[in-house]
């Protein structure tokens, strides 16, 4: 099971890097969906020895939400808004990927220093690093991209990072916290979707940075 977890972690980090390097929105949505499914499997794999129905249900709910529901909503937002790709982000694809390497280096460094027992039980020290990396990637996307849609993606990735971190640090997911965050993200996706729809209708574009033209 350890090898499977390591492979999964590597896939998680690679998907983070891909999000940083790719500008095509539909591909990004697919990658985020992949991350969601991966994390669902992950919470099963980490608790392999003592699987309770609760773990199964939580894994299924979060996998379903992140892997199917969000992507569908986001895809509809993309087709409604008619935006295909991220053009002229604040930070271009190559610097983003380089920043991603730096973020991962930092995550590994921090991961080695956090006193987390759950991670060691789960079999890989990389769990903490990979979840930190995912969390930081999400924040980076929110900060470095212009389109409101990519920023929404960033929030979801950020949430994925927290989820993975929770799995890493506690082993079993603290259901209440996790559900709360899930709900937040769910609402965020809805609000963003509605907001984007309206921004697009009013202004013919989706650039969040132009919202500052509204200030008095």
């Amino acid at each position: 099971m350890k090898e499977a977890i390591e492979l999964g972690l590597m896939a998680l980090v690679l998907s983070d890097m891909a999000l940083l390097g790719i500008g095509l929105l539909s591909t990004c949505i697919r990658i985020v969906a992949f991350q969601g499914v991966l994390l669902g499997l992950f919470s099963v794999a980490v608790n392999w020895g003592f699987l309770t129905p609760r773990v199964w249900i939580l894994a299924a709910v979060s996998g379903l939400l992140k892997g199917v529901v969000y992507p569908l909503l986001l895809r509809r937002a993309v087709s409604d808004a008619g935006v295909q790709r991220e053009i002229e982000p604040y930070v271009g694809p190559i610097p983003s990927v380089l920043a991603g390497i730096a973020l991962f280096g930092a995550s590994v460094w921090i991961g080695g220093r956090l006193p987390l027992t759950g991670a060691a039980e789960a079999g890989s020290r990389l769990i903490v690093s990979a979840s930190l990396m995912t969390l930081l990637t999400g924040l980076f996307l929110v900060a470095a991209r212009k389109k409101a849609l990519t920023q929404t993606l960033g929030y979801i990735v950020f949430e994925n990072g927290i989820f993975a971190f929770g799995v890493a640090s506690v082993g079993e997911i603290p259901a209440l916290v996790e559900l709360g965050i899930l709900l937040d993200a769910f609402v965020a996706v809805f609000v963003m979707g509605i907001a984007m729809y309206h921004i697009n209708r009013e202004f013919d574009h989706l650039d969040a940075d132009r919202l500052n033209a509204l200030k008095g």
Partner: protein
Amino acid sequence: MQTFVPWIQFGIGLVLSPLLAGIVNRTKAFFAGRRGQPLLQVYYDIAKGLAKGAVFSRTATWIFRAGPLIGAAAAVTALALAPFGGRPAAVSFPGDPILFLGLFGLMRGLTVLAALDTGSSFEGMGASREVFFSALTEPVMMLGFLALARESGALSLSGILNAASLERPETALVAVALFIAFLCENSRIPFDDPNTHLELTMIHEVMVLDHGGPDFALIQAGSAVKFWCLGSLIVNLFLPLRPDWPWTANTAAGLAAMAVLAVSVGVVESVTARLRLNRVPQLLAAAAALSALALIFSLG
């Protein structure tokens, strides 16, 4: 006998390297529904070129003739450093990856100078792109080798490649990164299209437009050997061979794997489109990222 084995493999590489181009072409022909060239076409081309006369530009100097000659010699020398079939290379010492990369730098430098020697703007354009892309592949290969070196603790190409095993996931990352660098260095799709007929879009081919006859034959032979050298590195990553197995078995496995590599290059060429020029640095940066991740994983 054992001391001669690397040199026998060196000879095999030298003789069989043009065959790989034939395999790539046949694979592409198969995908396109054609019958394609004979497998040995590159041999015929080289033999014919060597027997021909040549036309030299009045602008060109001795550098134009030295380019293909030194280029081919550098590729052949690099072949002596490349391990094959899970066995150490003919020449192997700590730090030889640096020499290996340097020899390809020499080959590229001389080819590019020969291109500039003609004073043709097309060749200048190809030369400009060639040096630029390879400047970006160097860090990819360096980081990839370093990640493997960290895993194995070895300092020579033979040491790091023969100790690598695909059981560790970081090796797979390095293999992918090296494969991307391999495609770029050998001017393959998605970086360059060896079959294009429009000078403006060529990279490697346009640099050698003015070379004819024996010079062009040397360039073809040199490129074939380069393909073999870099290919044998990737093949070594995938093959779980051990140096203490009989060398004939190792060599046979290596040859089979080289053929598979050539087929997979053909498949990649058939199913992918060429990248826009300004996207090339992005793909190479992604390859560098893979190498860097592999290195960080191997530390973790």
